[in-house]
């Protein structure tokens, strides 16, 4: 319940000025979903395993979207705490791909450089860098790098011995022959992204 009363008090929303219609259009375009189909039954919030950790439960993210509250949404923790488990999408009575919309919101937030959950983004980035570098995922590397950058030096440290003991992981990364090809995908995408601003 602690999530209910913290930093969630919004000022009066002036519906005639403070509604960002372009933002709604953008989300509709990029996600291919129509938020106005949502009638706020709350099924997504009810099924979401992370509701307790969200600053705004999914159904309210949908509502904020309908109300064009761009800043509140893009600055929210919720969009980053969603793990795309697809429960909301599967059970939405209005057939909205809610998880898809959350995905799109993350993408937009990332593009606009406002990410409320730095650690999660950092983890993702470390993951992607490893991928760009080797073509595959180098688990040890990711963990170490992530801990270094995030400053949680000893996070999950106690797991180290377990993992090693059971010989679960490679100590050295396997670099695939086509690693450069994968890197190419990254580069081409970044070029394209720049071109379209």
């Amino acid at each position, binding site marked *: 319940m602690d999530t209910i009363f913290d930093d969630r008090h919004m000022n009066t929303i002036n519906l005639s000025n403070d509604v960002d219609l372009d933002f709604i259009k953008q989300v509709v375009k990029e996600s291919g979903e129509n938020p106005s189909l949502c009638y706020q039954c709350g099924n997504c919030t009810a099924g979401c395993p992370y509701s307790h950790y969200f600053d705004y439960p999914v159904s309210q993210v949908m509502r904020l979207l309908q109300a064009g509250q761009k800043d509140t949404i893009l600055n929210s923790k919720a969009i980053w705490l969603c793990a795309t488990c697809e429960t909301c999408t599967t059970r939405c009575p209005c057939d909205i791909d809610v998880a898809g919309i959350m995905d799109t919101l993350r*993408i937009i937030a990332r593009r606009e450089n406002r990410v409320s959950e730095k650690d999660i*983004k950092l983890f993702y980035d470390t993951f992607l860098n490893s991928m760009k570098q080797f073509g595959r995922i180098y688990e040890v590397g990711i963990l170490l790098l992530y801990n270094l950058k995030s400053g949680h030096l000893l996070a999950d440290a106690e797991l180290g011995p377990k993992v090693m003991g059971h010989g679960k992981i490679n100590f050295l990364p396997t670099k695939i022959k086509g690693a450069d090809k*994968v890197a190419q995908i990254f580069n081409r995408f970044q070029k394209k992204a720049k071109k379209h601003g």
Partner: protein
Amino acid sequence: MVETTYGYYAGCSLEGTAREYDQSLKAVLKTLEVDFREPDDWSCCGSTPAHTVDHVFAAALAARNLAIVEKTGLKTLITPCPSCMTAFKKAQHGMAKSDSFRQEVNELLDEPYECGVTAKSALQVIYEDVGIDAVAAKVTHTIPDLKVAPYYGCILNRPPEIAQFDDPENPVSMDKILAAAGVEVCDFAFKVECCGAAFGVPKRDMVNRLTYKVLTMAIDAGANCIAVACPLCQQNLDLRQEQVNSLTGSSFNIPVLYFSQIMGLAYGYSPEALAMDKVIVSADRFVRTRITVQQAREAKELQEQQAKAKGKSPKAAENKEETKSEEIE
């Protein structure tokens, strides 16, 4: 024996933290006479992180691998890791549905992908193509007091539009496969609850609390072992079980095995062959009690004779033992 030859995409986890999945699954597929080839020089599917960057980009990372498989002429790709499978299926779905999307994706690739490959989970291939009967036919061994809670995790069957397999709310493929392998399966209500997935690292507490719920429900269901089909589920439930204990003051000590390992045991493979040593919470106590089907039959007959003599049902006796073994947990 299934006619077609499959592609087999291990994925990064199965090379590392989920080797036992890779090793045991290959063994089981061998027993089931499923013929498969691994595409050479495959790369990471992109998984969740790529999806936070861009839809086209994410699809491209997945499609690169599908393109490689497509070139080899294979039509179906066994994808043991649900996260990879979803990445593939989403790419496939998006590219098949919209030409413009397919173009955008192919622009990022060296080899264009023409949507000719279907990714299937190992479960789906065994359940639909191999078939339950074939699974049962190969069983040689059994573990008398093993009670498994089949845990499918979140994205294996969801969303239905993408997964195209089994029931999104109450999947049964793993239940039936394990049952066919002669294992007692519990009715597990948390089959499809999410374990926290990739958040193990950045959001450890959150994940620990979610896994706590799953583990509790498994015990409540009367299980003494959890079967999984996903490296992340396995990691969060097994590797982090001690974290959960220290966070919640619980004392879980329940093995979390890949369904393929359990099948392997039923097919008489050695623990080494199934890399049983790689799971953190040891399942030795079960491996030790493994007997052949023949022995099991004899034991049962003996028990029934005694029961007749004593005039009490063998079932009651079993039940007592169960409750004991639970208390120990």
